[in-house]
């Protein structure tokens, strides 16, 4: 199973703001370059983007979870 990894450490969010819908829903498709998640670190919110297009199978982290650099954040099916 392919995954997308965190490119930095910090706190993980799957949506742009607390009330917003997730960037991508489980089972939903995404395009190359599309934002998948936010990671908060060094007092900034940084977008994690997909390198390739595909389908998001499931999130491996909850909103607000701590995430380490290189940790798998979502499982994906490559298109």
């Amino acid at each position, binding site marked *: 199973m392919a995954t997308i*990894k965190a*490119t*930095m*450490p*910090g*706190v993980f969010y799957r949506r742009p703001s607390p009330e917003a819908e997730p960037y991508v829903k489980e089972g939903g498709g995404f395009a190359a370059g599309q934002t998948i998640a936010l990671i*908060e*670190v*060094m*007092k*900034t919110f*940084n977008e994690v983007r997909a390198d390739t297009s595909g389908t998001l199978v499931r999130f491996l982290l909850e909103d607000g979870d*701590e995430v*380490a*650099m*290189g940790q798998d954040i979502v499982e994906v099916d490559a298109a």
Partner: protein
Amino acid sequence: MSELIVHSPGLYTTVQDTGRDGHYDIGMPPSGAMDQYSYRAANLLVGNPEDAAALEATYIGPRLEFTDDRLVAVTGADAPVSRNGEPVPAWQTLAVRAGDVLSFEMITAGARIYIAVGGGVDVPEYLGSRSTYTLTGLGGHQGRKLAEGDRLPLGEAAAGGGAPREGAAVADALRPAFWEVTPVRTVVGLCSYRLTEGGTRSFLDTTWKVTKDADRVGYRLRGGTLDFIERQQPFGAGSDPANVVDLGYPVGSIQVPGGDEPIVLLNDAVTGGGYATIGTVVSADRDRIAQAKTGDQVSFEPVDLDGALAARRDRRQRLDRVRDALRS
């Protein structure tokens, strides 16, 4: 005009040098490379003076294109480096030509990458330093972190040879270690009298975790609580037991607002304020904490002033050994 073209800036990449020393009295922190050892070693690898301006990249390395023949070296955090997509070693002198592109993969250990280029990054000096202080937007490249499309002016590489040849390397023994728990030697003092005995013990015995907010300003840590001695706060001090009337903050000093999350003040920090500082990380070990990531662990190891000075001398001697080995 020789330039470095920024294809992608990484997450937080700035121009830094030894720092803007000598202006603390006007509230100006030094800024400068957080890991001075790695930064200076990178300069030595390309034949620069130790204090030439270089790039510091946090968590994600930049992608850079060269516009002429240069020497370049990468030090600091462990991250696979490539020249035109081909892996090249870190901690070594590399030669690049016009059109060559330097890029990085994900960091595997440490937090900050240093990239030195022969001739140095030739942005204008501000108060005697090229270091970027982003909070007030001064120094470095337009006072900010790098952005896609930036073109950085480069200086003239030192004439007369003497620069290391491609492949010259810093010996493994002279490269910094990365720890499971980063030990930072600390002189306990200044306002440490404000802690209870248990508070001091807790400070030294706790393994602290670096929180998400850690940056060039300071490292907030989590993992324990520190009790302050009860007292009637003096006139002019705030009501938090961690408040004092007013205090200058040494670079590397540690304050504990509320008594539960110590903050180590670093290169871009405020120079004074109203919190008790209970100790100061020795200058040599600011290099170590600079390579600790959010989520990493650190512990404070007490040393006296002699221990702090010995640590500083030891770092200087290690850099001298790097220089001497590259000369021969």
